[in-house]
């Protein structure tokens, strides 16, 4: 088994890009990742990629070159990017390949996602009566969490305000204008307790990462960022997940708790070792709940953590340093890879005015419907 390094990283900025297809964004990100590590397309031995709304990711092949390599299309909801990355990771770790591409791109229509009940094994009536909305799930989960653990609406606004501040420092972010807490609280209520600017929006973007075996990374002199561990987990019994017509009364663990624990165990690390983290912030409440589900604090401690700025720059654990989904938007296929891209910049010391000083261990967690989470831990060598 080989250690696995991420040797190249490319991004097409997130946002709205009229005149470009989703595939165009994926091609640009892939070229940029190849340029970053000095490889050419024929050097890539295998590829994993995903897109939710822009066709099959392997449509990249005719654009990049028909080199005959295995290209596996990945479909795993909002966790597609994380799943692509880990598939590439395992392929190299197993010793089967020396280089692999993990790529994701997407271009969504404006407005909220519009899922079809059939695709989730749900009856049509569930959508007809108005329950087929991811926004409702996130709102109901944080509503109960606020009730149980004393989290205030002000804290929801602080998380969004931090996201826009971080986004204003990030060239690849979409929403780059800072916004204060009061404006966020006063914006249109979408799904109580969450207002318009507490939610991320579907957007457009592409990310490509090139992974290599230790041997190859050393050969190229690019053995600087190691993928130390990763895990993807799906929902266990008694987890409160999106699109659930009913729930058991007992509340159990979540897929994020399982994935986080597995990734930490494999790495021989704990939450206190992490220097910078990118965690799923579909909306402000998700970031707050995921802080605890990933083990960074206990339930309820977020109120104080966030008031004290512990997750902002200069705090003990800066979270979503590029503005996360709230500032970057969410192109499904690319979103989880964006988190890893940001962590790579942080570990290489290339994050400019959002650089976390002396970052050595970086954590990412992406969550998707119908209830899965992917975690990756990167280490600076």
């Amino acid at each position: 088994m080989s250690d696995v390094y991420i040797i190249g990283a490319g991004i097409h900025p997130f946002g709205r890009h009229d005149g470009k297809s989703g595939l165009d964004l994926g091609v640009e990100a892939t070229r940029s990742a190849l340029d970053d590590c000095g490889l050419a397309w024929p050097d890539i031995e295998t590829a994993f990629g995903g897109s939710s709304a822009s066709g099959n990711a392997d449509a990249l092949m005719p654009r990049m070159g028909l080199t005959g390599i295995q290209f596996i299309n990945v479909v795993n909801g909002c966790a597609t990017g994380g799943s692509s990355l880990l598939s590439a990771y395992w392929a190299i770790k197993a010793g089967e390949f020396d280089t692999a591409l993990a790529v994701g791109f997407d271009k969504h229509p404006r407005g909220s996602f519009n899922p079809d009940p059939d695709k989730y094994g749900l009856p049509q009536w569930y959508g007809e009566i108005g329950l087929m909305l991811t926004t409702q799930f996130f709102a109901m989960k944080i509503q109960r969490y606020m009730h149980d653990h004393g989290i205030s609406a002000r804290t929801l606004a602080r998380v969004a305000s931090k996201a826009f501040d971080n986004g204003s420092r990030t060239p690849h972010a979409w929403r780059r204008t800072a916004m204060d807490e009061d404006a966020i609280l006063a914006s249109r209520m979408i799904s109580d307790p969450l207002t318009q600017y507490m939610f991320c929006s579907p957007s457009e973007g592409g990310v490509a990462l090139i992974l290599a075996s230790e041997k190859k990374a050393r050969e190229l002199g690019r053995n600087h960022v190691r993928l130390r561990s990763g895990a993807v987990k799906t929902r266990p019994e008694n987890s409160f997940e999106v699109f659930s017509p009913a729930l058991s009364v007992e509340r159990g663990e979540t897929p994020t708790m399982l994935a986080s624990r597995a990734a930490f165990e494999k790495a021989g690390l704990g939450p206190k070792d992490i220097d910078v983290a990118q965690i799923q912030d579909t909306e402000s409440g998700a970031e707050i709940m995921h802080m605890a589900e990933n083990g960074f604090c206990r339930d309820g401690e977020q109120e104080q953590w966030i008031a004290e700025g512990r997750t902002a720059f200069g705090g003990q654990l800066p979270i979503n340093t590029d503005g996360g989904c709230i500032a970057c938007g969410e192109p499904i296929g690319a979103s989880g890879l964006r988190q890893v891209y940001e962590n790579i910049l942080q570990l290489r010391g290339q994050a400019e005015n959002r650089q976390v000083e002396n970052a050595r261990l970086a954590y990412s967690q992406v969550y998707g419907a119908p209830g899965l989470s992917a975690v990756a831990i990167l280490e600076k060598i």
Partner: protein
Amino acid sequence: MTSELFIVDQAGKAHMIAGKNRANGQIVFPCPAGEQEGVYDRIELPHSGTLWTYTIQRIPPKNPPYAGVTSPEDYAPFGVGYVRLGDDIMIEARLEADPGSLQIGMQMDCVAISLARADGTAMTTFAFAPSQRSHNP
């Protein structure tokens, strides 16, 4: 289809229909049909329960899959929540209530409602409304 999700008893009270697993007693909703039919017994859930969590759908859902009225001038925000019925299950449903009156822990009753479709027809479905009891103690 929708009529299999709940029944209205002789006293006019609505009850959700769930499935109880014959092997392990697990209660699930909707009651599985078809391939899994022999595995579950059809049971009626209690008429009343407590609100576990909720939100308010302030903006019109996309149509489809939503069948209700979505035009901005006619759209009315509606509550959505999970109501705990007995010791085993919580059901997700529309809430027939003044959105401002919703509170975690409040008593809710199962009711049958008529939902106006955007195409001018109506569908009968289930919802939960604040308990009469809690309004008139």
